[in-house]
């Protein structure tokens, strides 16, 4: 495709667009298909973004790996915490340990008991955050050693149940991306069919245009512009409807977990706006290929 060809294809030429008669069903087919596909693409995109976010969040929680709780009578807590920290620091595979401060613990409890909780008056266990290294530490061995030296210690290891969730979120994201590719492919196929039908229905028009000296790129351009514009309009409508649908989904909340986090967030709302542009691009390429092939056959 030379630069001149592309210019002929893109340049808005009202007169050139009139030489192809407006054709009912291929126009409606293109509008409908690109609209429906864009609508689906919005949801696939939302799903892929949400599962991506989820995978990231779970994975980072995984990296945090574990918490150690020290349940001990008030006067022993400090001593046991100190021993536990020493043991943890000596354990191979533990990258970082940190005892949570009083304020941090209060913040964790605030959602349940309110902000003005008198933490000092309650037998609240001390929490120690453990971040594992690569490869991780031997949780079983650590448990045994803690049981011997820090009687009040309970190791709470998230890995076992988080890992499959991260895997699931990642496969969900992959599925969503594959769906977007399939939606693109199906759109290309349908628009190719519609363009072929339009070209075949207008074989007479093509012949007359050739008799008066029209070049292939001129004839193709008239079809390509028309289909590209229709795909753009159809996809824009589909995206607007799709985004409205996503907006109507419930707000993301922690309690709802995955299902309520399905929307777009922040700048993510701009991402679906790329869909009509991509749809138009797909229509452009599909119609151009179809026109070039058909015009060769019609000669």
């Amino acid at each position: 495709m030379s630069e001149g060809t592309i210019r002929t294809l893109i340049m808005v030429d009202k007169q050139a667009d009139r030489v192809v008669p407006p054709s009912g069903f291929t126009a409606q087919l293109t509008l409908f298909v690109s609209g429906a596909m864009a609508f689906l693409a919005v949801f696939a995109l939302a799903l892929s973004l949400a599962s991506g976010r989820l995978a990231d969040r779970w994975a980072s929680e995984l990296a945090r790996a574990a918490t150690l709780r020290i349940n001990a009578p008030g006067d022993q807590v400090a001593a046991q915490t100190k021993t536990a920290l020493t043991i943890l620091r000596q354990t191979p595979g533990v990258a970082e340990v940190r005892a949570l401060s009083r304020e941090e613990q209060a913040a964790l409890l605030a959602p349940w008991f309110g902000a003005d909780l008198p933490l000092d008056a309650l037998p609240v266990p001390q929490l120690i955050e453990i971040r594992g290294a690569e490869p991780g530490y031997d949780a079983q061995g650590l448990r045994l050693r803690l049981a011997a030296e820090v009687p009040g210690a309970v190791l709470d290891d998230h890995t076992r149940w988080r890992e499959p969730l991260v895997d699931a979120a990642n496969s969900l994201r992959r599925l969503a991306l594959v769906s977007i590719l399939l939606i693109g492919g199906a759109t290309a196929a349908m628009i190719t069919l519609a363009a072929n039908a339009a070209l075949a229905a207008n074989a007479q028009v093509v012949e007359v245009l050739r008799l008066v000296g029209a070049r292939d790129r001129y004839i193709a351009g008239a079809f390509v512009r028309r289909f590209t514009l229709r795909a753009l309009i159809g996809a824009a409508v589909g995206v607007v409807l799709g985004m409205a649908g996503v907006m109507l989904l419930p707000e993301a909340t922690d309690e709802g977990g995955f299902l309520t986090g399905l929307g777009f967030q922040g700048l993510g709302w701009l991402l679906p706006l790329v869909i009509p542009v991509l749809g138009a691009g797909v229509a452009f390429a599909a119609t151009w290929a179809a026109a070039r092939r058909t015009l060769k056959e019609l000669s």
Partner: protein
Amino acid sequence: MIELENVGYSYGGGELLGDISVDLSPGSFHFLTGPSGSGKTTLLKLCYGALQATAGQVMGFGQDLRKLDRDQMALFRRRIGVVHQDCRFLDHLPLAENIALPLTVSGHGLAGQQDNLNELMAWVGLTKRAGALPPELSGGERQRAALARAVIMSPDVVLADEPTGNVDWEMSQRLLQLLIELNRMGKTILIATHDLSLIRAAKSQVQARVLRISNRRLQLAGADL
């Protein structure tokens, strides 16, 4: 301009034209006549590349038409104006746009050509029909429009297939005058027609050669016309 050398054309039904040699030299005026079905339209199609000769070769502006690719063929057709026997319009476009079609597709557009178009439409008496769609026109109106479209690019060669087949005598004289005028401007003209009175009328005004197809061969018709 257009030159046929030992051209033959055969299709499934056998040979239609054979051993045809003719040179449409610049500024020449030719008539092509012959019985219905003798191959006049076919010969014109060979001249503008709508059909490929099955023998011999057709040269247009010095190029072998067989060797032109589709883009080159398009450029070749912009230099010749053709009045097709069946007119060939785009039925969804108003007449004025159909007549301007060669300008549109060649990228010239109508800018600066509107006067030219109006004048031409007046010449063929179609000013009032400018907005009509081709299917709404009478046979004669279609033929006049076809002639207008053929000459709007001011081509070097005009090939006209029965341009006066459906019009009355007066209009046929006007169309002939238009073609004679173009010839005086140096254009090469070839008219296929049954109408001997048209040929006679032309011969009194221009030097025209009359070619006749008979028995698949092309002959120069004598003074019997």
